[in-house]
């Protein structure tokens, strides 16, 4: 046997077979590997190459600042402020949840947050936008920033980024106009108007910030960087420069706005200053106001509750476009227009005001039980005779379909939104027989429509609900010769240097057929009320340098509650350029608080140094009117 010798004979057939099998196995394996390589590299190579490139390229968003908002004189009302935000990057974070929690726990005292809350915030953002750094807290003080940078090894994945925040240099002034910005919500993202917005972006949520969002919103830029597997940037590939949002110029005059807010600061209320010809809003405000700066960062729930709580006067509510009130005697302009155009009276029709009107077992008294005797429209407006307008209400209820006043109220812009470029405007309510009878059928009210409802409507009491802006539109229509304007704030879009990019044309006006003689009679009545002894606002405007035509109003809110004070002024008479409306919810008589407020606004509007009465005296006038 060859084992015993050191040499062996030629290879046995059995060994040859077995070596051949091993060789065969090797051959098959090489074949498999070659085919697999062919598949990976030659057939699918393009796909894998794309994936390899995708692996290494990261887009880092560069935030585009929102456009500024300026007033008609170019004064910056809404600006941007740059602040520091603490972020956490997903790819640098330790993989184990326990280690992540340790990082959060170290971060927590620094940011005055709970570690659990940090984890929640971060995970929520990672789920929404993977691979992108999550913002833990925005607007941290520079000391925090330095501490994190100096102790980078203790804070893996934690970074500090510069972000732009909205800044409102005048705090409470104009807050309701500008509105607020906030993070875009998931349902919003699905809407057309938010095309191009990404999760986590801040968009306008109310006010001008909302309605002109597409101009104010910039286009975020991006930095494309080559990163390694740990997410460290290795090289910059390309950069898309962010395009900041456009600057928006408003028709608002800041000085008037400020004067208006000061004028109504004593009470809950609102004011509107509007160009009667174009509908350009010069100022519009509501009290109480709020500081929109707290919305620049994510607002705390506590703050939001406080700002929307009615017990605090719900500061977030814009009473100028959302506050619905009975208007008191300021409604008489609408009743007068309806009666004249509906043929119930002519400007010279004389009615007798005996102090009260008795209808269907109810006696409607003049406010303050005054007796004005025989009078026509002009005088009725001057002294604000209720009985005169009770009669018109009574007659209108019986004339035709009985909707004469309602129809004209709607035509003049009441009972539906005015179409101003602010979101959330109220419609209001002009009570009609159908409206009350429908409620009655549903047992939501104790009685059906009666003539008394129409009589109340004629003097702006009862169920009627109007907001100050609607009233401004109605008065502007009479003042400008019958054009129903659409109020607006946005004037034009500019670049950051103030050069015009796009001008917003004044929205089309609706023409109403109002007889010029009738119209003049109404204006004369309003002028007399402000300028002649015995006129309801004569104590306030009698010595005012600018000729004003205006109407007071005192809306009764029921027993034990203070009356609401109204005033609508048109100036300069006889060709008014502006309408100014003010209302104060607990202001009492129109002449007492609202009219002085309007006077103060007008003196700034017309650039006067006014030293006139700040509070009207009611001596010798009908203070209820």
């Amino acid at each position, binding site marked *: 046997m060859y084992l015993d010798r050191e040499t062996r004979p030629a*290879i046995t057939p059995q060994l040859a077979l077995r*070596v051949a*099998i091993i060789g065969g196995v090797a051959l098959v394996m090489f074949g498999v*590997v070659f085919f*697999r*390589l062919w598949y*990976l590299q030659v057939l699918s190579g393009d796909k894998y190459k794309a*994936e390899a490139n995708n*692996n290494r390229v990261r887009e880092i968003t560069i935030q585009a600042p929102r456009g500024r908002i300026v007033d008609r004189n170019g004064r910056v009302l809404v600006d941007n402020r740059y602040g520091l935000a603490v972020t956490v990057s997903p790819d640098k974070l330790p993989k184990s949840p326990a280690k992540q929690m340790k990082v959060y726990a170290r971060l927590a005292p620094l940011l005055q947050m709970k570690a659990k809350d940090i984890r929640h915030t971060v995970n929520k953002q990672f789920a929404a936008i993977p691979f992108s750094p999550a913002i833990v807290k925005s607007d941290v003080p520079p000391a925090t920033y330095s501490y994190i940078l100096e102790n980078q090894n203790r804070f893996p994945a934690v970074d500090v980024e510069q972000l732009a925040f909205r800044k409102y240099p005048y705090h409470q002034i104009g807050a309701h106009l500008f509105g607020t910005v906030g993070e875009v919500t998931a349902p919003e993202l699905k809407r057309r108007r938010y095309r191009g917005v990404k999760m986590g972006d801040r968009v306008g949520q109310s006010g001008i910030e909302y309605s002109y969002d597409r101009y104010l919103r910039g286009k975020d830029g991006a930095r494309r960087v080559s990163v390694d597997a740990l997410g460290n940037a290795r090289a910059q590939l390309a950069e898309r420069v962010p395009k900041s949002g456009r600057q928006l110029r408003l028709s608002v005059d800041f000085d008037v706005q400020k004067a208006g807010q000061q004028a109504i600061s004593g009470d809950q209320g609102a004011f509107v200053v509007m160009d009667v010809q174009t509908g350009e809003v010069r100022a519009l405000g509501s009290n109480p106001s709020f500081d929109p700066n707290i919305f620049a960062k994510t607002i705390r729930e506590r703050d939001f509750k406080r700002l929307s709580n009615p017990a605090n006067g719900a500061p977030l509510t814009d009473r100028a476009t959302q506050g619905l009130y009975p208007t008191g005697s300021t409604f008489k302009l609408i009743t007068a227009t309806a009666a004249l155009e509906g043929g119930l009276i002519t400007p010279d029709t004389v009615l007798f005001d005996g102090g009260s009107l008795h209808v269907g077992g109810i006696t409607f008294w003049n406010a303050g039980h005054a007796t004005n005797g025989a009078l026509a429209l002009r005088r009725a407006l001057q002294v604000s005779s209720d009985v005169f307008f009770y009669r018109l209400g009574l007659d209108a209820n019986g004339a035709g379909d009985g909707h004469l006043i309602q129809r004209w109220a709607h035509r003049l812009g009441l009972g539906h939104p005015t179409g101003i470029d602010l979101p959330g405007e109220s419609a209001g309510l002009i009570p009609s027989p159908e409206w009350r009878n429908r409620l009655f059928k549903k047992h939501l009210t104790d009685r059906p429509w009666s003539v008394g409802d129409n009589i109340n409507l004629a003097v702006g009491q009862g169920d009627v609900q109007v907001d100050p802006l609607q009233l401004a539109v109605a008065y502007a229509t009479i003042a400008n010769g019958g054009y129903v304007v659409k109020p607006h704030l946005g004037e034009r879009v500019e670049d950051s240097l103030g050069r015009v990019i796009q001008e917003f044309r004044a929205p089309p006006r609706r023409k109403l057929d109002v007889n010029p003689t009738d119209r003049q009679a109404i204006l004369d009545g309003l002028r007399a009320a402000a300028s002649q002894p015995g006129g309801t606002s004569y104590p306030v405007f009698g010595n005012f340098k600018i000729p004003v035509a205006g109407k007071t109003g005192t809306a009764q809110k029921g027993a034990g509650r203070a009356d609401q004070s109204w005033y609508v002024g048109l100036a300069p008479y006889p060709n008014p350029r502006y309408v100014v409306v003010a209302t104060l919810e607990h202001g009492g008589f129109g002449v007492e608080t609202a009219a002085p407020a309007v006077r103060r606004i007008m003196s700034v509007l017309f650039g006067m140094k006014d030293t006139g009465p700040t509070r009207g005296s009611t001596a010798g006038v009908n203070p209820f009117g």
Partner: protein
Amino acid sequence: MSASLGEQVKGFEEAARPRLRPWLQLDPLLLIATLGLIGFGSYVIGTATSGDIAGNPHYYLTRQIAYGAVGLVLMFFMARFDYSRLREWKLGIYGATIALILLTLALGTATRGSKRWIDLPFFKLQSSELGKVLLIVALAAFVIDRMRRLSEKETTSRILLLAILPAMLVVLQPDLGSGMVYIAIACCILFIAGTKWTHFLAIGTITVTIVVGVLVGAPAAGVHLLKPYQVDRLTAFVNPTDNPRKQGYQLRQSQVAIGSGQKTGRGPEHATQTKLDFLPEHHTDFVFSVVGEEFGFMGAALVLSLYALLIWRALRILTMAKNLYGALIAGGVAAMLMFQIFVNVGMTIGIMPITGVPLPLLSYGGSSVIVTFLAVGLLQSIHVQARLSALAKRRELVT
């Protein structure tokens, strides 16, 4: 014609007489394959790791070249050495294998939770690597001893147990890959020796049962023989997208690297998968992926051709060995190389589980490189001895 007839005859005799210089008896193709692989491998490691250690771009390259040089010297030494003498030292060699592995377990350096190295000055010895070549030499000798009783079940099980003992010990380190190499070596040596087919059938059945038992049965019963990451690695290749963050991630990145190389490769400069660390372990277990990314299908085909050459020469040397001991050693070496090549390459292209087996001569690492050189040296030794003995026989015939 100036030379005398006698001188001419002497010249012819001189020319006809076979020369016995052993250096010329080396297998030149085997040598070319070996040098080609270590050279190309070092180059690939150099390009792949140039950015890994800040301030020292040639850290891995210089070390790999040094390991290669040491390996080369040892290979030539082995080639001159008559392997047959190793048979007498089988017990010592086997004992040394076990002792080294135990020593590693006892005082090895722990790296990432595993103890695989013994710290020597200038060098970290990975005993499981050295065990591969020692085991080949020892097992082949044990098989020769029981050649007459080869058909007995007892022989097969004894040999297998002799391999399973060190295999179990290295799995404890844990080094599952080397354990599997040991078993493959034992099986191949038995196969070459001529063990009955029925025995292999039994081995196959038992293996399948154990694998199923360890991966499925034992965990179900609450016994975890493998560490969870080992199970993950072994099963991840079945469905890599299942677990993209961990084991599947490595597989995915490896395939992306190879695929993105396309036909001719992206070149060392633009191999982003490697350079930006998306490819894990790019100088050790996944070095083949680097070849695929940097040099494409052409580069991969070149490397595979060199391996094919290596295996072809190993099998050829097996058939020409002067004695059975040489044939068995050559079989063991061939098994070791084939197993490591296919498991490693298969892993990088997604058709084999991740087992942490280095790619012979390409993967960075002193132990692996030197042990592979020793194994190739054994092959050369078998070749040299076969040639010498053949030449000697021819000389006998001539004289």
